[in-house]
């Protein structure tokens, strides 16, 4: 069996005194898109932040390519190749698009110029706006900048926290197709989403999180077809 790129093993974690994740296990294999779905407050974003060492892990382990990175500070985690796109506030609004990307490459030793060109190929819309302040862009374009910024390093895995929240349907589809494109460049992706249906549509596998623990798991298509899950999240208000 190949080692997963990222594995969370029986994680208990939270902020301060409050425990949010009670028992969470999940993994991402090479070349996979994995979605975490679940109701509001289930701990989806917390799961992601625990990978980055942004909160207290009480028990369990986080592993990157089989090596423990539990409780490693964010900067070290990022240096080791985990790229993270927060849900909101994910671009430097006062910096130009290109400067945002350059900042994304902070931990990259060399080849920044070349990587910039690759990113502008992957996100052609951004190429013509490279001198514009990121704050002046639309929500969808900002999301593109945020993803491109995260990919400026040679990411071993990309974590996306609700990349389509608050976007119009048109942009939503565009983001999901971009996610496919990123996967095709060989970067596995862990994605937290409220738009469960579309997320599962592009995902190889998915986890359903309820009350800080994984309740269901399966292939993207399988979960999307599961009637219980459909009743819980897909049709409803979330």
């Amino acid at each position, binding site marked *: 069996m190949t080692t997963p790129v990222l594995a969370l093993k029986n994680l208990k974690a939270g902020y301060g005194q409050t425990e949010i994740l009670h028992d969470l296990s999940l993994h991402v294999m090479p070349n996979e898109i994995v979605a975490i779905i679940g109701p509001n407050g289930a701990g989806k974003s917390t799961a992601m932040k625990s990978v980055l060492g942004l909160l207290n892990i009480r028990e369990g382990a986080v592993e990157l390519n089989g090596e423990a990175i539990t409780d490693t500070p*964010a*900067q070290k985690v*990022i240096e080791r190749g985990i790229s993270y796109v927060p849900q909101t506030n994910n671009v*430097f609004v006062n910096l130009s698009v290109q400067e945002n990307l350059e*900042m994304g490459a902070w931990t990259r030793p060399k080849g920044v110029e070349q990587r910039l060109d690759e990113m502008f190929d992957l996100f052609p819309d951004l190429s013509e706006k490279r001198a514009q302040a990121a704050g002046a862009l639309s929500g969808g374009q900002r999301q593109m900048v945020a993803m491109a910024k995260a990919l400026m390093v040679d990411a071993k895995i990309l974590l996306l926290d609700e990349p389509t929240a608050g976007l119009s349907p048109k942009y939503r589809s565009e983001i999901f197709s971009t996610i496919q494109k990123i996967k095709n460049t060989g970067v596995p992706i862990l994605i937290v989403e409220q738009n469960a249906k579309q997320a599962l549509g592009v995902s190889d596998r998915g986890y359903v999180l309820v009350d800080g623990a994984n309740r269901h798991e399966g292939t993207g298509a399988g979960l999307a077809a599961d009637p219980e899950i459909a009743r819980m999240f897909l049709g409803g208000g979330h």
Partner: protein
Amino acid sequence: MWDAFGFEFVNFYFIPGLVLGCIYALGAIGITLTFGILRFANFAHGEIMMSGAYLTWTVMAIAGAAGLTLHPLVAMVPAAALVIILFLGTDRFFYKPFRKADTIKVVMASFGMMLIIRSAVQAIWGPNQITFVPGIARPNATLQSITGDMGMMILMPNKHIWIFAGTLVLVVALGYLLGRTRIGKAMRAVSDSPDLAHVTGINVDMVIRATWIVGGICATAAGVFLVMDTQMLETTMGFRMLLPMFAAAILGGIGKPYGAVFGGLVIGLAEELSAYPWIGDAPLLSPGYKTGVAFAIMVIMLIVRPQGLFKGRSF
């Protein structure tokens, strides 16, 4: 239009206003960068400025004892290095412990530092005024004769020319740093969003050190320019500068170095021009109230537009 009015206005109000403005601008750069990147109002900034001037004087005095006459701008270089060490040491021992705490704790710590540094300077150098450069500064003769031939005589002593040139060089260098270099862009990024900078992998500690270094250089320059202008050293000068510098930083928008420069020039000019006899023969505002001008501008900004003219951060 270059009649007695113009001559008097430009030479005795406008140019001194610009000189003062340059000093405020350099001081405000450090304040606005600290406020933007470390997120707190550093009350010790004026005292750091003042100690920079004292250190410069000491370097000049030591060199003088060795038979070497140093220009303040040269003596400023080793002094600035010491000020940077002072800044970094202060940060390490007094501010860093509160990095994760409520910002007001750091403000309080900086308030304490203000007193510690001033008392230390008073204990070392004594509380009395020290003459920085003796003698009366004569207007630059070349400039006087050239502008005089053109029918608009400008009386500007060399010290003012140095101050303008020094400020210009520093502001251009700062512009290059923030716009073209990796660390400078990272400083803007941290000022923009520290959280995002953190999860982007930017070395925030390095950015903070860079901020103190840039702030230290500008503060030393501001302190030295001020004593070059007044030719006097005294231990309360830092405290007196503090309010106008904060006013300049707020006017220009917190976290906006160019805003701070603009704000500094505006406050400097406003302070000097408020003493001009705009109506009748008496000064518009008694010179005793000069410092009040900065405060008034600041209060008006806080009421009308707390984010400053250039859309800085408003908390």
